[in-house]
């Protein structure tokens, strides 16, 4: 018998709102299964379970705001007979009469009956709007049938044709921006307080990589094309293999590097704020596989379908300004990680190539690293290794 509780999705998280259950009593679950969706200041997060067994009882209801550690469900061990439920076990507090969670004084339920089991895919904005309007759509027009804000609005209009809903505020209505700002502030303040940062920067000639990329993408359909970002991540992950102390989580003394590279990508949100979900086991993926993982991660960040493991297990973070930024980014380490790599916007600059000054595409890479676990000489060698790898894109 074990309890499944509200997980912490970062040191800054105090509570979360249960949005939906993806399992019901009697379902068997395996380690890593997504069993629930919780709304946090980082949007809707898919929660994985870290034990195997059978769901005996759900202890929380969708809509409830619950602190980290609050019991969500009771599990019986895999293989064990289902607990005789009728007699409440002594240790089990009477199921808390759920403080009826602001049931929206709802109009009649939507015509589309929600599927009894299985996930309702929906963007955070759509979820928030559905809750606000008391609408429950199960299928929308988004990727994989995800319910989008537009679907909800369409449904709302259909229901109340004479009373068009006023346009909501700009930004991402599904996210509490003030809350996200507080979470970022808490993490960054902790980083600046606890981590003695040092910084290094280096200019890399990207022209060879860019020429290789252009030639490679020319005969590929869009879904097979690579972005420079994938090459930068691949080079970073490979360089970490030679400088493993930069990859890890400083959670206990003494510090030990992590065996796997869970590479966080800082993804800016349009409404403001950012999320840094991780590509798990990035060291096992080649450039194409990393590109696929990046696509998937960005798409799910936008749609609000990240998983808690992606938000809590990062061992390094890469932050990239992309195509419309400035020359360099000096980052703040995301605790308890011990390094952050920042890529500025690649730009054509005069560089010396083959003994002559030539216009070449260049990028400034920076390292912010924790002086408790590494020092400048190793950090410099690490950035030089990223440079070296990017000069041979064929072998990346």
């Amino acid at each position: 018998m074990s309890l499944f509780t509200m997980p912490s999705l970062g040191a800054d998280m105090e509570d979360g709102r249960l949005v939906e259950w993806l399992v019901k009593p009697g379902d068997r679950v395996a380690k890593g299964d997504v069993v629930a969706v919780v709304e946090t200041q980082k949007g809707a997060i898919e929660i994985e379970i870290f034990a195997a067994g059978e769901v005996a009882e759900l202890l929380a209801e969708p809509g409830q705001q619950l602190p980290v550690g609050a019991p969500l469900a009771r599990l019986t061990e895999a293989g064990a007979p289902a607990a005789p439920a009728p007699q409440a076990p002594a240790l089990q507090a009477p199921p808390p009469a759920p403080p009826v969670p602001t049931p929206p004084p709802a109009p009649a339920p939507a015509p589309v009956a929600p599927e009894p089991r299985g996930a309702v895919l929906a963007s955070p904005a759509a979820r928030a709007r559905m809750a606000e309007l008391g609408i429950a759509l199960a299928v929308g027009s988004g990727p994989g049938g995800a319910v989008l804000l537009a679907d909800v609005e369409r449904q709302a209009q259909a229901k109340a044709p004479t009373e068009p809903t006023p346009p909501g505020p700009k930004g991402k209505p599904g996210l509490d921006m003030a809350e996200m700002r507080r979470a970022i502030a808490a993490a960054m303040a902790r980083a600046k307080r606890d981590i003695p940062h040092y910084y290094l920067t280096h200019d890399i000639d990207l022209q060879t990589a860019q020429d290789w990329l252009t030639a490679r993408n020319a005969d590929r359909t869009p879904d097979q094309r690579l972005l420079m970002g994938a090459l930068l991540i691949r080079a970073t992950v490979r360089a970490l293999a030679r400088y493993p102390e930069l990859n890890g989580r400083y959670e206990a003394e003494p510090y030990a590097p992590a065996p796997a590279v869970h590479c966080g990508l800082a993804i800016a949100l349009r409404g403001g704020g950012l999320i840094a979900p991780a590509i798990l086991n990035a060291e096992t993926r080649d450039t194409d596989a990393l590109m696929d993982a990046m696509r998937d991660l960005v798409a799910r960040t936008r749609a609000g379908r990240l998983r808690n493991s992606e938000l809590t297990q990062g061992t390094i973070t890469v932050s990239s300004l992309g195509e419309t930024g400035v020359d360099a980014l000096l980052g703040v380490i995301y605790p308890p990680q011990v390094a952050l790599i920042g890529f500025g916007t690649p730009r054509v600059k005069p560089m010396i190539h083959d003994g002559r000054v030539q216009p070449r595409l260049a990028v400034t890479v920076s390292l912010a690293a924790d002086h408790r676990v590494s020092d400048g000489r190793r950090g410099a060698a690490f950035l030089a290794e990223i440079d070296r790898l990017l000069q041979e894109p064929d072998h990346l």
Partner: protein
Amino acid sequence: MTPLDLRSAFLADLTAVAPDLDAATIGDDDHLQVDLGLDSMDFLNLVSALHKRFGLPIPEADYPRLATPAKAVAYLSAMLGQPQPPLQAARRPHAGPSR
């Protein structure tokens, strides 16, 4: 397809890769990266969706021709071998029922 059809198809693919954008508030001259905040991955996902929908190759060299909804409609229209009457579609913020 008429330019209006192309426009709504384009906006459908755009709001699929950027679910937090509201099609009704997107202007025809909004720059996808600068004004609407698409990053290079969002943009590539949009190109992939358009490729899938229209079967056009859309090489990287043509990306600048997709910079705004108006440019994209003209580009798609040209590539699909159709005449391009001027687009009389909605402008922001409250454009019309163009979905």
